[in-house]
């Protein structure tokens, strides 16, 4: 059968191509897989010696910073929600009042979104210096970029029927937004906002390390003083926090959407 022979040939080519990429990549990065396996025991040893036993002696200080991280993440998202919603209204095809405004805001949001949080922290470090405010600012920027995009998509996807009906009754622009667009999109908007908080908490460590503030800031100090057992306890706490927020927000989102 010609069809199946063609299909087999395609699969074989794809697999070979992937193997080629792997080998070529390892070669060019000078990764020696033999060495990696040979020294694996060594690496595990180092891990055990350096990180264990986990040191919980700074638990109260760490939990304080962990709570700080949560607040920073929520504050960043809240700022992102408010500015993102306004921006989304300005750029959605359904609600955009003006093409010029649309282009400007779309570009701004796109820049905010496409520069990773680590880079934002480094760029803004020069202007605002280390600390909670900078961490908050970075999280606001990435939340804003992300939420503007998904909010605009959500509004694009709403049914325009209700918008048409409200327009026909003589309602004004903001009335149509408040009474038509927002109620229709509310579950999705809330769901995305929660997702953004989740995302912020996930990136809080790296933002904290680079920008200061929260548990990431503490981890940076531990790293500087080579206090790895303390670092390990902080990592464990962050991981647990991320898992909890992930679960909670998934449950809430599922409930809102149904």
């Amino acid at each position, binding site marked *: 059968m010609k069809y199946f022979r063609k299909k087999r040939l395609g699969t074989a080519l794809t697999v070979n191509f992937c193997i080629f990429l792997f080998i070529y990549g390892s070669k060019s990065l000078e990764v020696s897989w033999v060495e990696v396996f040979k020294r694996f025991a060594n690496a595990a040893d180092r891990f055990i010696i350096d990180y264990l036993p986990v040191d919980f002696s700074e638990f109260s200080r760490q939990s304080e910073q962990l709570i700080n991280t949560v607040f920073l993440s929520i504050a960043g998202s809240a700022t992102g929600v408010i500015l993102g919603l306004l921006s989304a209204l300005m750029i959605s095809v359904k609600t955009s009042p003006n093409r010029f405004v649309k282009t400007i805001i779309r570009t701004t949001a796109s820049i905010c979104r496409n520069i990773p949080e680590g880079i934002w922290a480094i760029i803004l470090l020069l202007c605002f210096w280390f600390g909670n405010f900078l961490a908050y600012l970075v999280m606001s920027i990435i939340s804003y970029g992300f939420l503007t995009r998904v909010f605009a998509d959500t509004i694009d996807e709403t049914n325009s029927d*209700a918008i048409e*009906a*409200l327009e026909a*009754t003589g*309602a*004004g622009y*903001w009335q149509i937004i408040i*009474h038509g667009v927002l*109620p229709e999109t509310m*579950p999705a908007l809330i769901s995305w906002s929660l997702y953004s908080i989740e995302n912020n908490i996930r990136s809080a460590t790296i933002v904290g390390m680079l920008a200061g503030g929260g548990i990431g800031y503490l981890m940076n100090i531990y790293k500087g003083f080579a206090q790895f057992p303390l670092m390990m306890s902080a990592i464990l706490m962050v991981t647990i926090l991320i898992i909890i927020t992930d679960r909670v927000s998934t449950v809430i989102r599922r409930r809102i959407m149904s």
Partner: protein
Amino acid sequence: MTEQTVLRVENVDKIYKNGVKALSGVSFNVDNGEFVSVIGPSGSGKSTLLRCINRMIDASKGDIYFIGQSVNKADKHQIKEIRKNIGMIFQHYNLVYRLNALENVLHGKLGSYSTVQSALGLYTAKDVEKAIEILHMLGLEERVYEQCSNLSGGQKQRVGIARALIQGPKMILCDEPIASLDPQASKVIMEYLYDITRTFGIPCLVNLHQVEVAKSYSDRIIGLRNGEIVFSGKPGELTADMISHIYGVSSEELIS
């Protein structure tokens, strides 16, 4: 033109940007208390015609006068005033389904409130009472606080009618009001629309697909074909020949 004339459409053309000519040289009047149906095949321009009347779509040529006021020359503020006086009912009901029936009805009054007032839900007690009264009148007294997504098609359309009625409209436009409903619900909706015209004297301009329905309820029927009026007269004057002329096929090929 008499004092009775609510709507005067004069030589209206509509050419869409893509070059499609949706309406050409359409002229007719609608008087107070009149129930007028517009029939015609899909794409004959019925929806476009209706939407030109409240400027949801801009007519390309000609003019429309609503209670003596030019619709095409109206500025933004005047358009809002015109829209406040025209109720509109849609095929797909066009409700905000996550809100309840009462809130949807009150949307008909948004034009009379400031943005801040309406955002805070500061509807006057009078309007709320009136909304509830209209819902009662339309047999929805048990559904006042029901979220609209939980209503049946016929009930949704009644909420749509209530939203139009609370405007205190001088005219009602209906775009295929029964095209998405089962026969029984269709009958209920047509009866309500007919009663509204008879009881309150509010003229209704209704786009319809069902020729028989148009015949049994209308005072006058307008037949549209390729954007032109090819028939205008009493239901009795709508012969089988005329129907096939409007639809471009013999009337045996149509389900009435």
